[in-house]
């Protein structure tokens, strides 16, 4: 080894970051995603219009100088509504993913590490949850959380964690009998310390990869719920809602669909490609070539 210096070691995260930054597609997607998020946060302050200001006389106006994205059926400015809708869609996606992350990882690691009968009972429970009627659950959630839609989508996260739990469990089971875990047991580590010190840090890779793919999935789910009229409620708007309203009016007022759909697809595109890039960067096997 060359003369050792005091600088801290190149942790796996730095290696992963270096590999990720070389993947042009992932970087471009990352930039696009950040741009869209920034635009959604900052955008609405740029124009004088507010999201809910209805001006009935100027409804269904095509994109023009004063209304950059045109107006909707109540004459509300689509530029502001698309961006503020974006905030909600992104918040929904991230929030539900966070909830699913926490529960999924906890559930998966416990089931994976303890194994045996506990494991099969916990995973059987996950199978059952998979087939419960989703629409009924959403209606119930809407009734219980009728005021606050954020809680509603945190609850949606309660449904999304199932796949995450399965992935984490699979990883933990495979890591459980690797030698460094056995060494930890030999050193007298307690079960919890083993889970949090040894197992979870090594499971973070696939968890992050799946998380970046859950965010778009939840955003799509929110859009489907809006289609059923169960999702975000007026006067708030979300990409799902806007796309829904626009989808049927393509041949009459195409811009109602165009702008939200572009933002929505761009976000999904970039998130999916970031997810792919992370998979190549974090997964040691694939970095071999």
């Amino acid at each position: 080894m060359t003369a050792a210096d005091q600088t801290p070691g190149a942790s796996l995260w730095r290696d992963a970051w270096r590999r990720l930054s070389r993947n042009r597609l992932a970087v471009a997607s990352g930039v696009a995603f950040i741009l869209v998020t920034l635009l959604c946060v900052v955008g609405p302050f740029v124009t004088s219009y507010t999201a809910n200001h209805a001006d009935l006389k100027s409804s269904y106006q095509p994109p023009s100088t004063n209304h950059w994205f045109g107006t909707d059926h109540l004459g509300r400015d689509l530029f502001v509504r698309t961006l503020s809708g974006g905030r909600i869609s992104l918040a929904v996606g991230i929030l539900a993913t966070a909830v699913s992350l926490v529960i999924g990882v906890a559930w998966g690691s416990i089931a994976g590490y303890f194994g045996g009968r506990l494991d099969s009972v916990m995973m059987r429970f996950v199978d059952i949850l998979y087939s419960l009627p989703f629409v009924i659950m959403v209606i119930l959630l809407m009734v219980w959380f009728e005021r606050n839609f954020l809680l509603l989508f945190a609850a949606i996260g309660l449904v999304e964690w199932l796949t995450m739990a399965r992935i984490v469990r699979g990883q933990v089971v495979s890591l459980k009998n690797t030698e460094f875990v056995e060494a930890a047991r030999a050193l007298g580590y307690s079960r919890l310390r083993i889970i949090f010190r040894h197992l979870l840090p090594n499971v973070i890779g696939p968890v992050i990869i799946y998380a970046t793919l859950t965010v778009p999935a939840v955003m799509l789910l929110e859009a489907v719920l809006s289609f059923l009229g169960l999702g975000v409620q007026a006067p708030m708007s979300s990409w799902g809602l806007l796309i829904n309203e626009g989808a049927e009016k393509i041949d009459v007022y195409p811009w109602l669909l165009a702008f939200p759909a572009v933002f929505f697809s761009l976000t999904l595109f970039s998130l999916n490609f970031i997810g792919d890039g992370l998979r190549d960067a974090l997964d040691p096997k694939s970095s071999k070539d």
Partner: protein
Amino acid sequence: MPLLEVDNLKTWFHTRDGVVRAVDGISFTLEKGQILGIVGESGSGKSVTVHSLMGLVPSPPGRLESGTAQFDGSDLLQSAQRELRTLRGKRIAMIFQDPMTSLNPYLRISEQLIEPLVIHEDASREAAMPRAIEMLEKVGIHDAAERVHSYPHEFSGGMRQRVMIAMALITNPEILIADEPTTALDVTVQAQILRLLKELQTDLGVSVIFITHDLGVVAEIADNIAVMFRGKIVEQGSVLSIFENPKHPYTKGLLACRPRLDSTFTILPTVADYLEIIETGDGETELLEKEPDLVQPEPEKKVVGENEESLLEVRDLSVHFPVHKSLWRGASESVKAVDGISFKIYKGHTLGLVGESGCGKTTTGRAILKLVEPTAGEIRFDRDYLQHLPPEAMLPYRKRMQIIFQDPYASLNARLTLEQTITEPMHVHGLAHSHAERRDRAVALLEEVGLEAAFLRRYPHEFSGGQRQRLCVARALALEPEFIVCDEAVSAMDVSVQAQVLNLLKELQSRRGLTYIFISHDLSVVKFMADTMAVMRAGKIVEHGESEAIYANPRDEYTQQLIEAIPRDSVESIRQRVG
């Protein structure tokens, strides 16, 4: 006219972190009907050499810089992929190291066997089948007709290697390249495969390039040898001349540092005693000869006091793993990994546990430390019985008993720095008061195992295999244990690194009065390390006693077979063979 003449072959890998000169200008010739042994440690470029000849080097990172390889009038290195493909598997065949993964698990043996015939001779399935069965019998698989249609996972490691050989020789090629074919096999199976290869070579007259890191194997089979070190051939010649008077310091070091049955070293010489490596400028290295001063301390005879208590005593220990465990019916039958073994170890001694894979030696080591629940039997450690203790009660014994594993890459958590890996066990057991004091102890441990203090803030993936194993030793010592189980601690390492680690373990034993159980499948390594020895087979101990006595005249028939299977690499035996 040599069958194959390779001249100034250079294959470099252009990776993102700079150019790796895997093969840096080597030349050698392969005579017809001869076996050329290419010996070198991991990373010496021996595999890349043959892969370059066959055009199997993945092109984006790897690139052929220069060199020619004349075979039957045409230069292999310049010929287009399509021409090379007509040669591969037809006139030059190849077999690989790990039989477990080298056969396609999804296809039947028969389909994979006849594939070379289908590709090169356009043979139909029916025409090719009888030749495949005949080939299988030739490589020593009896009742081949039935077994030909089964799948790879239904064969043992040795059987699969035989299938690989049959697959390679079915088109009776002119050259067979064997890339470490026996490395992953047990010593008895290795002996059979080597004998098979020898017979087939003389019988079919095929010339063989045999690549290995094990000098013993090469001594047993090769006619000529080429020794490779860091991409270059440092010495080439007939097997007898190389073994009798090696000229290059690296070769000398390599020959000396290997523990052998008849060697009487108490401290193994290492390559570093013979060779000094100086890094000059742009990645070039200067090799200087060093005069080894092999001062050998007197081997202190360990003697057991009359009424001295044994530190660890195991009586009738057995560990059974249930198979087909189902919710309702409970375990129906079980695998008896360890089936009633007993032994004693005295303080400061080393007990060698020897046996082939699957004999239960690893499970025994794990059971003693309660990493695996023993099914029956007693484990007494310094007057306390451990077998019934619940996990929490094991904590004080966790401090006094430790374990070192085989695979250095898997036994260190990649996400923790060295400092965290070593200091945390102290924190768990509350050994030191402050983090600073724990840090100082860690530094002392690193130096004791021969690593620099500055490495504390580094991560495991930045170190070589040998260094990582030293880290594992340091981690084990963090709790100042009295007893350490070394489970195949050196099996995964090259010979030169192996010697350094073995010397370290011996030094620590004498300095700290440690007691070892040394588990290994390599009898020569066990001979060097162990005072007393136990040979295990199918979960039982077949022979137990002083290691010297057992090596001198093994009583049990299986032990004899094991010792017999160790490749003969003394100069007399080579002279006898080559004549």
